[in-house]
């Protein structure tokens, strides 16, 4: 794209024709540095504090902790809905002291199953009772 100042640039260039004495800048720099008066400088602690340095890492750790918590909660809910396999339930049911409430609560047992189970328990109790007699 053509520069809007190209007409001037092509004809006159960038040298304005100004000159400086030889070694002007080196002399000026030295002279200027020497003539600086004493001034009062208030020290500024530009070094970051410990917290400022650790802040990004703390935020990163908090973010990972949050993600981990969310994953744990999600994992917990998905696992309980699976009952973790039928064999675990069977083992639990064979135990006399077992409580089948958890299994029933899971929603995998129908009313018919519960009634059948109660009948079988009643019959077993009756048999035990008659044996004792």
């Amino acid at each position, binding site marked *: 794209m053509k520069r809007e*100042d190209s007409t*001037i640039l092509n004809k006159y260039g960038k040298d304005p*024709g*100004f000159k400086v004495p030889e070694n002007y*800048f080196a002399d000026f720099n030295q002279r*200027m*540095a020497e*003539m*600086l008066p004493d001034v009062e400088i208030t020290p500024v602690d530009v070094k970051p504090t410990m917290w400022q340095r650790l802040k990004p890492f703390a935020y990163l750790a908090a973010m990972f902790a949050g993600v981990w918590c969310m994953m744990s909660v999600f994992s917990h809910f998905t696992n309980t809905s699976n009952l973790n396999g039928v064999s675990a339930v069977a083992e639990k049911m064979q135990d006399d002291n077992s409580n089948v409430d958890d299994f029933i609560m899971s929603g995998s047992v129908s009313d018919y199953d519960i009634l059948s189970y109660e009948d079988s328990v009643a019959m077993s109790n009756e048999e035990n009772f008659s044996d004792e007699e």
Partner: protein
Amino acid sequence: MAAREKYDEALVVEQLHDPKLCKIAFGKVIEHYSSQLYWQIRRMVIDHDDANDVLQNTFLKAWTNIDNFRGDAKLSTWLYKIAINESITFVNKKKVMNQLSIDDDESFLVNQLESDEWFDGDQAQINLQKAIATLPEKQRLVFNLRYYDEMKYDEMSEILGTSEGALKASYHHAVKKIEQYLGENE
């Protein structure tokens, strides 16, 4: 010859606020910026001796106010601002001393150019400087910063406190006026 130490602005700004290192750090600032500030000042005041005085005042002002510089803006922006203000103040003072109107830039600056022993430009360069001298102060500043220093508009905007759009418009008008002046006076 010893190798020139690399200029690290972040480090220098940090050292400027350390009472033990501030003077050495400011020496590095002078070394790094003296040339670019000088040429900006020189294009404003034209005469070498005047540019030398204004550059000296610029650094003295920066040094005595160094405690106020907190690094919010770039050091170059801050120094340019001081240099431009010092140049404008100087030119206006000198015009008052010469009993000229504040708006009478052209004749004043052309006289400066013709009497400066450190100007050895040809007629074309004199004509261009005369054309630049006809511009209003702000347009002259914008033209010099853009044409000679190729400064970006966003940086110029920070220095001059004007929107980039307004600066682009200023530059456009400046170029057109210079072209017109040169067309009429060649």
